[in-house]
């Protein structure tokens, strides 16, 4: 047992750091840190970063090598996640690269793989996810969007909701009901790829707490989708969608992101006259210890995976603790800011006249509000605990 990186991993770490230094300049870093994150198309510096990744073959390192993945060990993935988070590097949209791609390279046809994997790898095309529906929140499988065959097309009718980035996306991967009479509700669902330019698609912004526009309602009215855009077999879509939920565990805890956030919080506390405050310092130290524990829990999971095993029961903690810690950091940022937690000017105002209060006060309150979603979306923490109770504790 030891915590040191071995020589090969240390070399890799150095390589990663050099790459970041070369392609993600300090100015970009500072800007990423101190401004409100923007949705949509990458900015110029972000585009340059993604291009460098593509050139280096590191844009989708977790994919199979045959499709352009980097063949990294879990430890290398861990190093990559940590180093890029600490440098505030932009992340590729997860919808294409982490959520759809595993479905495509596992169950997609060769034609689908050839058409869709390269643009995702090159960050040229953005995807959104059409899973949630009004009325079916955590109970995803009770979705009602219907797809009916009409010649070599499906005709799709229904509504999706909480669709992140639908207003920027070129494509949507979507669960639809193809057999309303299936014995179990999970068994009548298919997995479709839908071009967002198709006639009949309407997008309605859903503003999130504090007027942030990231999610949307999407209505589908007689949208025609070629049968060739169905992934895998008809009525087996639930299996594919569910499979990918267990596919991706690295990074789910957000340890590196929280480490960066906690470091900034310490700086903020110092800048806000809290340096002598034992009670506040205690809260930071408690959080840091919880985060250390989470990091070690993640490393234990990595070690199991690296040893060829399946992630152990400890891995099920990652999402719950990860979101709890991230939300707690957000809360303490608000505490540290004092009165400067209140101003909430429109982004244009900041662009024109500069921030109000300390540099990162505005992203902070925005982040806190949006961060409440972390324990709701993608399976609420209550659902996560139900899963652990059943799957791990056998209750």
């Amino acid at each position, binding site marked *: 047992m030891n915590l040191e990186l071995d020589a090969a991993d240390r070399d890799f770490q150095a390589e990663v750091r050099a790459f970041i230094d070369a392609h993600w300049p300090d100015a970009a870093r500072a800007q990423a840190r101190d401004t409100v994150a923007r949705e949509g198309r990458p900015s110029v510096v972000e585009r340059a970063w993604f291009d460098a990744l593509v050139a280096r073959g590191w844009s989708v390192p977790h994919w199979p090598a045959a499709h352009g993945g980097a063949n990294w060990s879990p430890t290398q993935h861990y190093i990559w996640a940590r180093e890029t988070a600490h440098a505030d590097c932009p992340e590729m949209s997860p919808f294409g690269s982490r959520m759809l791609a595993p479905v495509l390279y596992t169950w997609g046809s060769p034609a689908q793989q050839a058409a869709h994997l390269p643009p995702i790898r090159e960050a040229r095309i953005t995807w959104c996810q059409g899973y949630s529906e009004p009325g079916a929140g955590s109970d995803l499988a009770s979705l009602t969007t219907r797809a009916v065959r009409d010649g070599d097309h499906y005709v799709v009718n229904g509504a999706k909701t909480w669709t992140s980035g639908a207003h920027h996306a070129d494509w949507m991967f979507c669960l639809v009901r193809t057999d309303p009479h299936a014995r179990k509700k999970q068994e009548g669902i298919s997995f479709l790829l839908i071009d967002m330019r198709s006639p009949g698609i309407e997008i309605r912004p859903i503003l999130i*707490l*504090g007027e942030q526009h990231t999610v949307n309602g999407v209505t589908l009215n007689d949208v025609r989708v070629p049968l060739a855009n169905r992934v895998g077999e008809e009525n087996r879509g639930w299996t594919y969608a569910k499979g990918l939920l267990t596919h991706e565990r690295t990074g789910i805890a957000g340890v590196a992101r929280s480490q960066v956030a906690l470091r900034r919080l310490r700086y903020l506390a110092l800048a806000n*006259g809290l340096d002598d405050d034992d009670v506040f310092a205690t809260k930071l130290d408690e959080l840091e210890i919880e985060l250390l524990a989470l990091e070690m829990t993640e490393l234990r999971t990595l070690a199991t995976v690296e040893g060829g095993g399946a992630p152990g029961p400890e891995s099920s903690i990652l999402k719950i603790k990860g979101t709890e810690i991230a939300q707690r950091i957000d809360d303490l940022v608000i505490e540290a800011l004092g009165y400067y937690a209140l101003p909430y000017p429109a982004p244009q105002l900041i662009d024109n006249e500069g921030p109000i209060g300390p540099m990162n006060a505005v992203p902070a309150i925005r982040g806190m509000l949006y961060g409440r979603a972390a324990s709701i979306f993608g399976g609420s923490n209550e659902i996560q605990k139900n899963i652990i109770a059943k799957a791990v504790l056998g209750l």
Partner: protein
Amino acid sequence: MDFSFSEEQTLLKDSVSRFVHNDYEFAARQKLVKSELGYSRDHWRTFAELGWLGVPFAEKDGGYGGGPLETMLLMEEFGKGLVVEPYVPTVLLAGALLRIAGKSAQKERYLPRIIDGSLQAAFAFAEPQGRFNLADLTTTAKKDGEDWLLEGYKCVVLNGPSADLLVVSARTTGAQRARTGVSLFLVDASAAGVSRRDYPTVDALRASEITFENVRLGKDAVLGRVGRALPVIEQAIDEATLAIGAEAVGCMEVLYKATVEYCKTREQFGQPIGKFQVLQHRMVDMFMEYEQSKSLMYMAAMRMAEGYGDEAKKAVSAFKVQVGKSGRFVGQNAVQLHGGMGMTDELNVGHYFKRLTTVDTLFGNVDHHLRRFGSL
């Protein structure tokens, strides 16, 4: 011991409650907060007509003759409707400072206009370096013959954009954090040397950063005794703290009840989510937080009504600690239990959550009041 309300108090409470219920539905409120002004001058006139703007002022000054209990009742109802009209800055902050420290001439000049709704005011007390310490001031006022010259910077001045009258705390003598040497000045918002940067706050109110550059003030601009203003400021802030705490109690009542209703109707996995025991107990916890906050609200209001002293300060701080913690718990869990809907701007739940977050910060957060409670 007596926990009942007088007939007059009940009438006041009912009239505010009726207004919130009939004239302040959420959609209309959302239109208001998106308007240029950020609130409704019509509502403000209604407040004046119903006598609410005069609640805390003595009858001889043209007021209603109310005290902490009346303010509490009114603000709790305002909280239920997320009322955005600038009652706290104008009536409860600037108004209280004038009420407590004003000379007759000053009262006669300003109070009638506050009470009749024709004057908007704000209290500029916070400074970027000062956190919640009311005495930590770099804004200064220096004698220049008979006049004063005001120089400095105030942050997050609530109602700054609308205020005709600014009450400004400034240091006239002593070190940056000394308890003595703090004075109050009445400043015309349009005076030469006063400049503002206006913005909305996260809870959809309006505030300003205000710079004072060499602002010349006459000697009648001094409010209260020169160098002795801190106790006056503390009292006004404590009254306002009780008020926004009561508002938060109103918010929590709406939130826990809305959450219960939502969970009774929202179905998942074939049953209303209110049947899940974990959510049931969470709502019980929300309910208990609300009730405990309400208990301390009554205590704080009664102690303030008995007279302003250490007992009252201690009770207000205890209440503010409770409201800070309970508000966070109730707000966060109302959002959580409403799921995705709780995250949206269109549902009212998130807006109550934002107001509760702001109330925790305003006039000192949990840690600040916990320390103050322990030191008294």
